[in-house]
């Protein structure tokens, strides 16, 4: 008799074999978010579509046409208005024929589908536009090896992320997580338009940490769904970790806790006021450094493999002092501290990435024109 069996013999009509199955399958029934939320939808449908692609690859078949899922808060009302067809079990089995389906859904299984199957991306894009769904979380299985996710819809400002679905083994270690964080920075964060309220004055949205957290969560969900549970605001000890990543079953994969901080030059004026109050460099450094203690404590409380401090730095000038401040604190506690500078304009981005050579490094000053 297994350990599980021995502990549930007093549980009425429970079938012990099924109890053992649930335990053996571990995280397959666990959710990263409440039912009906877009995070739960993204996590589940990434898995559903990945499984479907794997099923086709195993049969050496190609995906005949893209499969597109769009999240809405109430698929019944919207689906009925569009005269789409209810499919309560869509996504329930990877063997279902999905090619050409454009669907809207709310839950982890089931959706309303457009009655006619669409064969190309152009007609799908057009149908999404016509249905007014351009601003909704969208997933598209483009082939048996590629899944694309638009976290804020096809019309959203956030760049889509792509997930490679090939059968090649992938190790999800801390270096891989680092690469994902960098990818998020380059694709989403560095030139974000949605995180600013007034870019010219370097005023961020009212709660920049929550905004960054939501976008990063969606990004990591798309990247890790099926391999890891990516959760937000997990209660740990006396605090709440911003984001946690826990591998589901691969022993080589690493778990991590991420603490997010934002630094900025001014506080966003509250409604009814216009004057932003300044935040000093010292205050920003102290604030960012406080994340080191939080993430190190969460890691040790829960035995995570790695602890990250991710500072999204909205301050002007790409200040080295903030970088130095967090690195010094992080080193003492074996925390991986990463600072990601957010530019306020394309010009700022270009000047930072493609600076002109300094005259001093080029030798003598240019000759005056003759």
């Amino acid at each position: 008799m297994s350990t599980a069996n021995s502990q549930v013999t007093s549980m009425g009509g429970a079938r012990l074999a099924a109890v053992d199955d649930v335990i053996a399958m571990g995280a397959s029934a666990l959710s990263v978010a409440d039912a009906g939320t877009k995070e739960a939808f993204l996590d589940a449908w990434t898995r559903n579509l990945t499984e479907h692609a794997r099923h086709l690859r195993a049969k050496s078949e190609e995906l005949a046409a893209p499969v597109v899922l769009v999240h809405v808060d109430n698929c019944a009302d919207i689906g009925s208005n569009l005269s789409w067809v209810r499919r309560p079990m869509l996504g329930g089995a990877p063997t279902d024929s999905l090619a050409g389906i454009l669907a809207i859904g709310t839950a982890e299984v089931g959706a309303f589908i457009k009655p006619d199957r669409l064969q190309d991306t152009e007609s799908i894009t057009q149908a999404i536009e016509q249905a007014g769904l351009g601003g909704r979380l969208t997933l598209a299985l483009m082939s048996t090896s590629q899944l694309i996710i638009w976290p804020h819809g096809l019309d959203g400002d956030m760049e889509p992320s792509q997930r490679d679905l090939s059968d090649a083994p992938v190790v999800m270690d801390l270096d891989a997580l680092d690469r994902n964080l960098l990818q998020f920075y380059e694709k989403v964060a560095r030139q974000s338009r949605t995180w600013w309220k007034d870019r010219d004055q370097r005023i961020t949205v009212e709660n920049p940490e929550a905004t960054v957290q939501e976008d990063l969560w969606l990004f990591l969900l798309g990247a890790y769904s099926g391999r890891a549970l990516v959760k937000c605001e997990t209660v740990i000890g006396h605090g709440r970790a911003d984001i946690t990543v826990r591998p589901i079953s691969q022993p080589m994969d690493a778990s991590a806790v991420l603490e997010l901080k934002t630094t900025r030059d001014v506080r966003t004026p509250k409604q009814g006021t216009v004057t932003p109050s300044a935040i000093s460099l010292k205050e920003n450094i102290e604030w960012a450094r406080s994340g080191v203690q939080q993430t190190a404590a969460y890691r040790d409380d829960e035995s995570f493999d790695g602890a990250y401090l991710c500072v999204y730095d909205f301050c002007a000038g790409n200040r080295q002092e903030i970088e130095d401040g967090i690195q010094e604190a992080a080193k003492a506690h074996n925390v991986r501290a990463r600072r990601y500078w957010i530019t306020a304009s394309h010009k700022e981005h270009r000047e930072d990435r493609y600076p002109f050579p300094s005259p001093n490094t080029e030798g003598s000053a240019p000759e005056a024109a003759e």
Partner: protein
Amino acid sequence: MSGATESPPLASAGMWKAWVLLCISEAHRMGMAPVATSQLHVILYLANTLADLFGVTRVRGRVLKRGAYPFFPDVQREIDRLAFSGVLKIEHVDFGAKNHLAAHYAVGPYGAQIFEQLLDRSPEAQRTARLLRELVCACFGRFLAARADIGSIDANYGDANVLEGEVVDFSEWSTENNNMKLARHLIDRLRALRPDAQRDGVRLYCDYLDKAMALI
């Protein structure tokens, strides 16, 4: 005495109506409505057995063990009243053997507004709606779309110590809520993955039902 803690019949009739409307509305939102009579009774039963996970006050802690799935005859009368008054609507009816009818319910013309009012005015209704949302999502995506006969494998209802025709008692004064025991056992066994005690408690129990259904 059980009567001291149970809601009086009139009050519980109102509670049942609220639970039924919350359940059908959540199923509707997720594209799962219409909901068959058997599915509705199973969800209502499971919600009562697992209510503690969400800090929800259960409406009833007992059910008569008769038939392949838990069924509350008095609640069925309230469901029918909701349908006749336009809060719910009957989308279609299955005609079975021996003049047995099984209705499939959806949100009626007055249902959506009452549902919104319930959520706006009552934190208890919000918690109940969350519990029912998790149950609808966890059950319909799995076993309940195909079959509702959970009786023999449900930890409470399937308990061999309770004979057909006897009452299955999982109320708060009883220590015999085996569904909760099993949900907590699963949460405990998977604690390394830090399951969310509320929603994952519901999901794990429904996952158990799904796997057990495959065995029968």
